[in-house]
C-alpha cells in the first residue's frame, strides 16, 4: 500500500525519433508526501516537463509505475486517466492554456462540468476559487482581456477548483516578469500553507530556494 501522494518507481519515458530512442526520462524513482512544496529544477531538455506530464496523467510511461494518491496509473485506459486528471490533479501550464472563447468563470467551471456537477453548484465553486486567487472582479472577462498574471491566476483557480490531491505547475512563472512571477509564487505558497501538495517546475534559483524541497534533474535522471 502506497501512502505517499506521488510515488514513482523506475519510470522511463523514451521517444522513438528516427532510428534511435530519446531517453527523456531514464529511470526515475521519487516520493512526494502529502502537503509538500517541491521545486523541480534542471536545465532545458532535462526531462522536467516529461515527468510533470506523467505525474499529471497527460502522458503514459514507457516502463515503470506511477502511483497517484495511492492508485497505480500503469495500464489505465484513456477514460480512467481522464478521470484522474479531472479529480486528482490540477495542472498549471507556462502558456496558461485557457479556453480563449470562454470567460474566466466558464474556464474555471470546466473541470466541474466534466465531473458532472450541476450548473448552480459549479458556478458557486468556481466563484469561490476565483475569489481565492483574487480575481472575483474579472469573472466575466475573456482571457484576451486579462494580463499575463491575471491569466495565470485564472489557470490556478481552474486547477484548484475541484480540490485535487496534487497541484502541478510546469514553469508557471516562465511567461511572466519577475515581479508578477513572485506574486504567483506567493499564491502557490499560500495554497501550500492551506495543506495542498504543490509540485513546481522553475528555472529561477530564487523561486526554487523558496521551496522546502528541491529536486534536480539532468538528462532524464534525478540528482537530488
Amino acid at each position, binding site marked *: 500500500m502506497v501512502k505517499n501522494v506521488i510515488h514513482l518507481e523506475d519510470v522511463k519515458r523514451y521517444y522513438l525519433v528516427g532510428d534511435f530512442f530519446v531517453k527523456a526520462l531514464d529511470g526515475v524513482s521519487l516520493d512526494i508526501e502529502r502537503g509538500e512544496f517541491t521545486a523541480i529544477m534542471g536545465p532545458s531538455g532535462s526531462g522536467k516537463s516529461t515527468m510533470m*506530464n506523467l505525474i499529471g496523467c497527460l502522458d503514459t510511461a514507457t516502463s515503470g509505475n506511477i502511483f497517484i494518491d495511492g492508485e497505480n496509473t500503469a495500464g489505465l485506459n484513456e477514460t480512467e486517466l*481522464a*478521470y484522474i486528471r479531472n479529480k486528482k490533479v490540477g495542472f498549471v501550464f507556462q502558456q496558461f492554456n485557457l*479556453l480563449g472563447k470562454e470567460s474566466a468563470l466558464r474556464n474555471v467551471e*470546466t*473541470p466541474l*462540468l*466534466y465531473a458532472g456537477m450541476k450548473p448552480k453548484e459549479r458556478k458557486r465553486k468556481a466563484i469561490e476559487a476565483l475569489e481565492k486567487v483574487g480575481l472575483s472582479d474579472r469573472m466575466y472577462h475573456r482571457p484576451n482581456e486579462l494580463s499575463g498574471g491575471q491569466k495565470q491566476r485564472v489557470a490556478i483557480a*481552474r486547477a484548484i477548483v475541484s480540490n485535487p490531491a496534487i497541484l502541478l505547475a510546469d514553469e508557471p512563472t516562465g511567461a511572466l516578469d519577475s515581479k508578477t512571477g513572485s506574486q504567483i509564487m506567493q499564491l502557490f505558497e499560500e495554497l501550500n500553507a492551506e495543506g495542498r501538495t504543490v509540485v513546481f517546475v522553475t528555472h529561477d534559483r530564487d523561486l526554487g530556494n523558496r521551496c522546502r524541497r528541491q529536486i534536480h534533474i539532468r538528462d532524464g535522471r534525478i540528482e537530488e
Partner: protein
Amino acid sequence: MFWENVKLALSAMKSSKMRTALSLLGIVIGVGAVVAILNLGDSASQNITKSLNAGGTDIITIWTQPDERTEDVFTSEFGNTLKNSVEGIDSVLPQMMSSGAIRSNKKSVGAQIMGTESLYFSAQNLSFDKGRAYTLEQNINNKEVVVIGYNIAQELFENENPIGKRVNFILQSGAVKSYEVVGVLAKKEQSYTMSFDNSVFIPFNTFTTKLVNNDVVSSYVVKTNKNYDTIEVSDNLNRFLDTSVGNDSYQSFSPAMITTMANEVTATLSLFLAAIAGISLLVGGIGIMNIMLVSVAERTKEIGIRKALGASPSVIRGQFIVEAVTLTLLGGFLGIIFGSFISLAVTNLAGWTLTLSYKSFIVAVGFSMFVGIFFGWYPAMTASKLDPIEALNYE
C-alpha cells in the same frame, strides 16, 4: 453537458458563418428534396381524388381516333351500340369537339367548342350559374343556342348578364355564326378530361349540321350505372371496342386509368427527387465531415486543454457529434423551408392545392440527425483519440 455542447456548437458556427453556410448547402438541398417528395406525394394523391370527383367517378370518356377504316363507325348511333353491348351503362352521349374564337360585342376569346346532347349537363353533374341547359327540342331542331363556361362568361361579358345575349363563332373558313347564350355554367374544379370553365357547348345536331360539316363523333361520354363498378365497366367497354374497332382507333379515359397515370407521374417525379435527395445528402454529408475535420484540426489545442481538464474520449466525441448534428439540424430546418417552397412551386404549376404534411418535417429532422451522426462520427472519433500532450503543444 448536452446543452453545454449545443452552446459550444452554436458559438463555433457563429465564428465561421460563411463556411457553415457553404457546408450546409448540400443538406439544405437534400432535405429540401425529401420534404418535397413527401409533400408532393400527398398533394398529388389528394388532388387526383379531387379531380376525379370533379370529372365524375361514374363517367368514362372515349375519345375517337378515326381513320379511313373506322370513320364511318363513330356515329351517334354507335353510342347506342355501346350501351346495348356492355353491361352497366346508363347512357352514352356522343360529343363533337373543336376549338376556335368566340366574340361578344366587346371582346374575343379562344375556347373549346363542344357539340353535346342536352342530357350532357346532367350526366356530368354540371350546375348552372345563370340560365339553364338547352332543351332536347332545341337540340333536335338544330337551334343556334350556346351554354358557356364560367371563365368564358367572365371574359366576354364581365359583370353583365350574358343570358339572352349573342356571341359570334369565327370559323376557320372565316365565316361568322351568331348564337344566343342560354346558360352559364357554375365554376368547376378542372378534371382530367375537360376544362369546363373554358369551354362552350352547343347542341350536338347544331354542331354537326351548322358549325362544321362533319359527323364523326369526337368522343362518347359514358355514364355508368351506380350499381356497377366504373373500372369494371370501363374494362369491358375497352374489350368490346378492341374487338369491334381495334385498340388504336380510340382512347378511353376512366378514373382507374387516370389514377394509374397520375401515380406514374408522381412516382417518376418522386424517383427524380429521391435521386437528388440521395446525391445531395451524400455530398452534404461529406461537406459536413469536411467542415468537422477542419473544425477539429483548428481546435486541436482546445481539445488538448479539455482533455487536460478531465474530458474523457467519449465526452470529446459527444461534443463534436452534437456540433455536427446541430449543424445538420440547422440545414434540415432550412431544407424544410426550401422543400416547402419547391412543393409550392410545383403544385402551383400543376394547379393543385398544396398540403404540407407534418410527416415530411419529422422525416426531414430524422434525416438531418442521421446525416449529422453518420458523417460527424469520424471527425468526432479523430478528436477523441488525439494525444493530450500533442494536442496541447499544437500551435
